[in-house]
């Protein structure tokens, strides 16, 4: 095994897993550099959670080699466990304990000494804005508070690698923003984040690299920009007041996608000012009245739909 100076936080090759005769992961290669955010993106049932379960030592893989923080996953699971933090899809908190007791429990299990454990718990409660409810049972917490506590619990032992399985699913927009900021702060402090999400916007916001998982295979991998560049789809959309305007514009512009019902045309474009001006000039010269105009650059949604070949409209939280 070649060890380089710039060690990857996570490196997996040929990762496989089946449940019964259902193949969930069909040979996955992953490479996550340290102190970056890696997003695993995919529709429900793509195998995201299974990947996190395997990488975080919760379940075993059927095949493949994985190193987490330089430790072999199968050979030294406890060495891996010592440096990771996990925030699951099912929030992994103890509902019968208070928020503070949950954090102190984690500190005890990380074998921090008593005083240090309490100090760390208090600090995390403060940082995650949970100090006021620290002495209340977690059963009384809102979904957002639970997620924050869950993440805080994963941070007690100062893990170097954190797995976040759909950390914002089911959160309101404000809590989601808060969570994003927390994640950014963590990465800034040198932590590596392995994130799964079904929200393209989230991957776009946070991730340094994104891998698209579909039916247990990686269908694309790269930076958000690289992925967006992989597909065409930039266009200018023109809306018209009547069918006549639509008709003459379509004749003038030539290669367009027309929608007679909505009275719109999609003109392929890279979205630059120059091409926009050229388009408007041509319409002006032909004296065509345009009702509305909007510019569309390809987003991850386009990438997602193109590469996975299935719409990801079901955004319900998984169980």
């Amino acid at each position, binding site marked *: 095994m070649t060890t380089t100076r710039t060690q990857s936080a996570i490196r997996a090759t040929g990762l496989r897993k089946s449940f019964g005769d259902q193949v969930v992961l069909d040979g996955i290669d992953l490479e996550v550099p340290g102190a970056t955010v890696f997003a695993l993106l995919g529709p429900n049932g793509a195998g995201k959670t299974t990947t996190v379960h395997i990488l975080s030592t919760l379940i075993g893989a059927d095949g493949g080699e994985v190193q987490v923080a330089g430790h072999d996953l199968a050979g030294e699971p*406890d*060495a891996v466990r010592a440096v990771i933090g*996990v925030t699951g899809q099912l929030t*992994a908190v*103890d509902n019968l304990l208070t928020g503070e*007791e949950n954090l102190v429990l984690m500190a005890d*299990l990380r074998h921090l000494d008593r005083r240090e454990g309490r100090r760390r718990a208090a600090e995390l409660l403060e940082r995650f804005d949970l100090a006021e409810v620290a002495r209340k049972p977690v059963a009384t917490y809102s979904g957002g508070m639970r997620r924050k506590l869950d993440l805080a619990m*994963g941070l007690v032992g100062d893990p170097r690698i954190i797995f976040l399985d759909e950390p914002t699913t089911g959160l309101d927009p404000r809590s989601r923003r808060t969570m994003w900021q927390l994640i950014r702060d963590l990465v800034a402090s040198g932590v590596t984040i392995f994130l799964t999400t079904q929200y393209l916007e989230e991957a776009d916001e946070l991730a340094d690299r994104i891998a698209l998982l579909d039916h247990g295979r990686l269908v694309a991998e790269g930076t958000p920009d690289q992925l967006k560049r992989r597909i065409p789809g930039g266009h200018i959309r023109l809306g018209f007041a009547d069918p006549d305007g639509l008709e003459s514009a379509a004749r003038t512009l030539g290669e367009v996608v027309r929608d007679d019902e909505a009275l719109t045309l999609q003109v392929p474009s890279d979205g630059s000012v120059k091409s926009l001006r050229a388009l408007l000039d041509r319409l002006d010269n032909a004296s065509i009245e345009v009702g509305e105009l909007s510019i569309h650059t390809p987003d991850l949604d386009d990438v997602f739909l193109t590469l996975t070949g299935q719409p990801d409209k079901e955004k319900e939280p998984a169980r």
Partner: protein
Amino acid sequence: MSTLSYAVADSATMLRRQLRHMLRYASVTVFLVGMPIVFLLLFVYVFGGTLGAGLGGPAGGRAEYLEYVVPGILLIAVAAGGTGTAISVAMDMTEGIVARFRTMAIFRPSVLTGHVLGSMIQTMLSLAVVTGVALLIGFRPTASPVEWVATVGVLAGITLAVTWLCVAFGLVTKTVEAASNLPTPLVFLPFLGSGFVPTESMPVGLRWFAEYQPFTPVINTVRGLLVGTAIGNSAVIAVAWCAGITLVSYLWARRLYNRDPIR
């Protein structure tokens, strides 16, 4: 820290967690203690007069039946405690927190040992309360201090065995409901043994079962220690049963826990 000190530290942490759960879920604890007390009062005051006469002793009555039935009631308390253990283990396994424990570098069986220690404490307390009630209503054991210690030892042994068995029950079932049903036969075992009536009074097949099932030697031993009836080889058989059930259940539970928790 060595593996052993991790084992102790993590088990102690998990025990603290269990004890907190018990305090917050006090209703369960009250039920577990209440049930054997209800049985005690029911059998002494409702059935006791008649059943006592059937014992055929010189006194033959409620007081004599009380003397006879206490060990059986204690075993019911042990079995009820086991039901509580199975439920709380099964509930725990449905919680995300246990998945978190599995991804932490801790002494792996500590989740289970925490449950076992917590349940042991709970059941031993419940046994003390039941014994206290029995004393209040006129139970007069003749045991010496050494015999009392031996009684606590035998009861701790059967509690350990039943607790590990019920931990395995809680792990093997997929739902909390199923986990609460699985230990139910244990609550009936004292009835199908020497707990409430002498096995000699039973029909042949049942009598055979009653004499060879694990609770009977435990009941006979406890009865002998407390009120001085003959123990014979019951003590040896009781200890063997306790050790055997504990070992097998521990291995079973450990294997169940180490399985992949497939979603």
